[in-house]
Every structure is written in structure tokens, then in C-alpha cells.
């Protein structure tokens, strides 16, 4: 049954009308037209769809909208709009090849940087984010530059 779910998206009030079982990722990429967040495996294994929920990085492909009601969601669009320093650092370090994994990694790492985590803590947290092109060290170089 369709319902309307209210939450905060990148600092703005937002409403989604649809099934409460729809994963946040599909709401973002569909009705909410925020396509920066990527669909990777759809099973919570690869991290491509990472967003923040009340500041905590989570995968959005397996997070139903019912769990989002009243919460604060941050996506890569929010990180880019805020001109987070990690964005420029990633570009400076050429920290990517195909870039499919990058929105999820950027969103997670930016949140952890803002929480004051160390580069090493972030590296361990990024073990849940797969990169197939092998850009890991460049991504970590960009993160280390911001955290120190």
C-alpha cells in the first residue's frame, strides 16, 4: 500500500510517496531523481550505493523507506553541494578510473572525516566498499591529505 514518508535529504525536507518496502536507493534514483548514488550489487555487498543515515554510512540498496521515515539522509549530491574538501582531493589525486564505486566511497569517507576518524580507521571502514579498477591507494592518498 502506498504511503507518504517524510525525511530530510541533504538538509532539505523531502517526501516520498510509494511502498514503504521500496529500498532508499530506488527511491533516490527513481521518484526523487537523485542518481548520483549507484546501484552495484543490490545486496549490500559492494558499497556502491552508500549514503548516510543520521550521519552513519549505510548501504541504501537494502534499506527500506520505512526505516528512513523521520531520519536525515545524506547522499553524494549533498557532499558535492557542500564542496567537501575530499572532492577536490580525489580529483587532484586522480583517485579513480571508471569511478563507479566513487560516489559511495566519497559519501562514506566524507562522513567519517567529518566525524574526526583517522585515515587508518577510514581505510578499514572502506573494506566494505569494493573498487575493481584498483584505485584504492589514490583514494587513500586523497583521504590522508584531508585527515592530517
Amino acid at each position, binding site marked *: 500500500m502506498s504511503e507518504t514518508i517524510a525525511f530530510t535529504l541533504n538538509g532539505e525536507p523531502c517526501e516520498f510517496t510509494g511502498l514503504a518496502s521500496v529500498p532508499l536507493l530506488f527511491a533516490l534514483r527513481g521518484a526523487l531523481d537523485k*542518481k548520483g548514488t*549507484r546501484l552495484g550489487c543490490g*545486496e549490500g555487498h559492494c558499497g556502491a550505493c552508500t549514503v548516510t543515515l543520521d550521519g552513519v554510512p549505510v548501504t541504501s540498496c537494502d534499506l527500506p523507506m520505512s526505516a528512513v521515515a523521520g531520519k536525515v539522509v545524506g547522499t553524494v549530491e549533498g557532499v558535492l553541494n557542500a564542496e567537501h574538501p575530499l572532492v577536490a582531493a580525489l580529483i587532484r589525486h*586522480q583517485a579513480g*578510473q571508471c569511478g563507479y564505486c566513487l560516489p559511495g566511497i566519497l559519501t562514506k569517507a566524507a562522513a567519517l572525516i567529518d566525524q574526526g576518524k583517522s585515515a587508518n580507521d577510514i581505510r578499514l571502514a572502506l573494506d566494505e566498499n569494493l573498487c*575493481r579498477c584498483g584505485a584504492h591507494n*589514490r583514494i587513500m592518498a586523497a583521504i590522508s591529505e584531508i585527515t592530517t
Partner: protein
Amino acid sequence: MNVPPPLKSSPLISQWLSFEPDGRVNLFSGRVELGQGISTALMQIAADELDVPVNTIRLTQGHTELSPGEGPTVGSLSVSFGGQSIRLAASAARTLMLDHAAGLLQTTPNDLSVQQGEIVKDGLETGLSFASLCADVALDVPAMDHAAPKPSSERTISGASAPRVDLAARLTDGVLLHDMTLPGMWHGRVIQPPTFDATTGDLSHLKLHSDAQLIRDGQFIAVAASDEYMALTEAHRIAGMITWDHNTPSDVHPIDGLDAEIAESETLYDSEDLDKGVTEISVSVTKPALSHGSIGPSCSVAQWEADSLTVWAHSQNVFALKASLARVLKHPVDEIAVIFAPGAGCYGHNSSDDVALDAALMARALERPVRVLRQRQDEFQHAPLNPAMRTKVTARLDDAGRMVSYDALVTSPPHSTRPVGESEPNLHAQQFLSQPMPIGPGNEVPQPQGGADRNVVPGYAIPAIRIVRQRPAYVPYRNSAMRGLGAFTNVIALEQLMESCAQSAGKDSIDYRLAHLDDPRAIAVIETTRDMVGKRDVGEDIGYGFGYAQYKNSAGYIACMTRVVVGDEAQVTNVWSAADVGEAINPDGTINQIEGGIVQAISWTLKEEITFAGGQNLTQSWADYPILRFSEVPKMQTRLIGPQDATPLGAGEISSGPAGAAVVNAVRHVLGVVPDRLPLSRHALVALLS
């Protein structure tokens, strides 16, 4: 001046570039951006020859109606073939522009130069520019009649590290095909038959929710809906309701299948002197089937407008895809356009072409644009895989320990079943249609490039060589191309053999290799790598390993040394590499490619295997197919030592074999046994020690 093959087939300047009155330059390439940075490199080359800023260039790539028909983006050939074509065409355009300007200014072209697209005489602007002359200078003339590329010493853009032109855009939506929408577009998912011969009965009784629709042609079954999540959930629900009939698959494991019936055997090189020498040493390496493992599942959008079909695909070869679609759809080829749009990195022949046929079939059935996304499980189970293979190499040494003969046997399915067009479209769904077309056995890439046998021909000076390649009859999966083809396994086998021979001869293994090499560029990358490592630490669980190859015996040279710590698992902590790729257009981008190849090769070597049991591919998700993660990636130092005035040799695929060999050799030094089966997982290490 050598004419690169793409410029032979598309000889006119206008096939490669044109000028706009607003100062922009249109650049056309058949090569496509797979994340390897080719867009940036091609724009750097053109900007340098034209003396225009990179940001005035608008690149159209992989467009069947606009781009030169360059064939596939494979084999580390994009710069050496495609880039050189652009360099020659751009230099020819500049020559014609300056000739015309000289006529107008009543001077000679030698007195003119170009700054930022403006034509300059004695340091002063002439009022003429590429933009102002664009209507007056015809570019539909052969590039080779006017080509005059700059000497390497005068290049300022090409050869200098440059930021990737497309990276910032990839941080959000707008660039990737996955984000594309068209008015009225629906979303589709395919329900894959479990085997090639599976059939199911009437499905017309199945009722779908919302506006979702079932599309069926023979055993090609798909679900589409206006909402993507509805399409996905309905596809899952319907898939669970379908009963398939099929023959019980053979339960022979693909690795065991390498020892079973041989369908074809070919002797590529032979010698009568194989039995010379006094000591015989053999090494065998078996590699399981691997997945490309793109992070993004393959995607395509198709739209029919009357009889005209447009397909957007992240294909490595839009031209072959267009011809293949025409054959399968029984539709005139000149009414089909295929337009490249970027997807996730593919690293070879994955489902990117298959999904284009899926989308075309669904868009035709629904009479509306359809975007189709493959599912993660499909990518593991129904996409082409890098085939399981085995390479056995045997050397004979003389009294002094020098190699006098080399005998190699490569057992592998062909490493390409790519769509090639009319003769073999090879698109997955074609075999399921009501008028099915079987998928062909594939076409092996001939020597000297080689497919399964790539790089099994040693670069070392060995007087007597025999190479035999044989194809197993039993291949219970789709076999096709992945980064480097057979080079990964073959270089590991050959470099383990060098290690064993050096041990037998009582020599340092790097000195032993150097003693069998006479190419100064090979010697330089090996010696530089050894110097980069410096002093090696010692410990029971620490091993250093070495690997070297010149990719395809004709492309880039690279040597790798790894430091590996072996506990419950093998952890690569450091990799040092020196490479000679000739001219590097964007050195930082080249290093990014080389290091990406190293990371991928370590992952293949230590972790990856598609699991088969009972004749079924059991790999469903990333949980079944671990790849190297952030905390497992080693520190890497990579140095480019090639001469910038040399021919560009290509870089994207050169590091996989030597990096894999360096890891295997390091593990071998710790364990004291010669590994013969990949991956060197925790389980394999235990087995090796027992």
C-alpha cells in the same frame, strides 16, 4: 611514416576532426572510455598537434554514425593505433589551416604559428583562427597527404601528466549510461534460463502487478515496468514461479575438463632440438575461471522510432555490436545506430553487448524506450568468463645451467567469443529466441598477439622452442576475453620456470634472467626494479618475488618485485615496478593503469575463482567471490623509464602477468614449494604445506 590501421580504413581528416566557428574542435574516435583515461590521452594528443587548449575539444567516441570505424577498444592499442591516427590527422589539419592562412596573408606557412587556436605571425595575432577559417578549408582530404606531426621535443601537452577530463563528472549522475532516461522509458530485467538448453512452457497465466509486463520470445523471458524497483521485484517473483526443463549438466569440473577430451590441438612453433641439454625442469600453473567483476552491472537503453533502432551501450566495439544486432534482429544494418555511453570498468568482454540485445528486444516488444540492467548474479553466472586454463612449461639446461630448450603446452578454451557481427553475433539472448542462433565457439587471437597462448612465447633467448595450444572439448560456461587474455597464466608459468631454472643453476634469479636477455629495454626495466627495492628484509614468513614480461612480446615492458608476508593468508605488502611503455601521453594516467592492473592481478592470484559443482556455476554474489579490499592493497612504487620519443606501446594490460608471477614467486620462496594451482587462498596455502 607508418600509417596506423585505423587511419588506413578512415583516411580523411574530416573522419577524425572538424572545427566550429565558435572555436571548438570536434574530435571523433572509435576508441571508448572504459575508465582507462583514453579520452584524456586522445584530447591531449589532438591539443598538442593543433595548439589548442584541451578544454576546447569536444570528443565523440564510439558512435557508429559519426566515429571512424576503429574496431574494438582492446589489447592496449588505443594510444598506439587510435592515438597515432589522431596525431597524424590533427597535424594534417593544422598544415592545411596554415597553408590557407599563408595564402590570405601573402606569406609562407613557416612564418606562421598557432597559439590557442589563433594564427599568429611574428608573435602578433593575424585575425585569423581555426574558427574563422573553418568554412574555407576542406578537411575531406587524406590525412597522410598533409600529416606533419611535431617532433617529440616540441610537444608540451602530450607527455605531461594531465587531470582526467571526465573524473569529476563521474562522482555524480549525468555521464554514465546507467543514469540515462528518455521520455516514456521503462525499466527491464531479464530472467535468465539456468542452462543453455533450458525450456519452459506456457506462461500466459502469470499475472503481473501494477503496469509490469512479461516479454517473451522463445526462452528469452523478461519483465519491464515504468518503475525500476517494480520491474526488479516482479522479475524476481516471476522467476520463482517458472519451472525449467533441461538436461542434467555434466558434473565434470571445468578444471578437470582440461584433462578430458581435447577438441583441437595446434603446434604454433616447433623445433628438432628440444632434447638437447642435460637437466629438465617443468612447471605447471592452473588458473580457474574468473569473472570480470565490474562493480556496475551491465546496462543498455534501446529505442525504436518507426523502423529505426538506436541503442546506447557501454560496448567495447559499437561497430561489431551494430552488425551483430542487425543479424539477430533480422533488421537492416543501416537502420541501426549504436552510441557508446560510459558504464563501469569492464576489463574485457562482459555482458555489455548482451544487454544491448536484451534492451532492443524489449523495446521492440513494448514499442517504447527500455533501459535494461543486468543483475549481479547474472554477471557471475551468465556473462562470459575468463576461461579456466593450464600452462605447462618445460626447460632443458646445458652443463652451465643455461636454457637450451623450452617446451610449452597451453590448454584453454579460446579467449574470445566477442560479437564480431554478421558471421558470429554471439549475443547471449540469441540462443534463447524462438528462432534460436547458437553461440559460436569463439575465435582465438592468432600469434604474434596470441589469445590463450599470449606471452607463452618467451622473451628470453632460448635456442629451441616448441609451443602447443590445445582446446578442451568440455567448456560448461561462456568463455571470453579478460584483461591480458592468456598472458596472466602464461607469464606466471614462464616466470616460475625461470625461478626454478635459476635455482637449479645455482644463480640469482634476476641475474639468471638478465643472462638470457639481450633487449636493452628489457634489461633496463629489470635492473631499475631491482634498484628500487634496495635492501630486502628477512624473516621466515617474508618472501620477495619477481616477474617480468614484455606484453605480447611487442608492447610495454614491465618488471615487478613484490614483498609478501605469509600467515594464514598471503598478504602482499609492497610492489615495486619499472615500466617502459615508450611514449606515455599522460604519465600519471599510465601509472594509474599499471597499478590498477597490479591490484587486479594480486586479487586474481590470491582470491578469485568461479565455483562449480555438479555442473553448475555456484557463484551468485560478492560473498561467493571475494576480491582484494582496501586494507589488502599493497604500497606501490611505479616508475616509467621509457623514452618519450619512442613509439607508444600501450600500458593498460601489461602489468597483470608480471605482478601475478611476482606474487606466486614470493609465496613460493616462503613456503619452499612450487604452487601449481591458483588462487593462492588460505585453503590452497594449507593444502600446499601438507
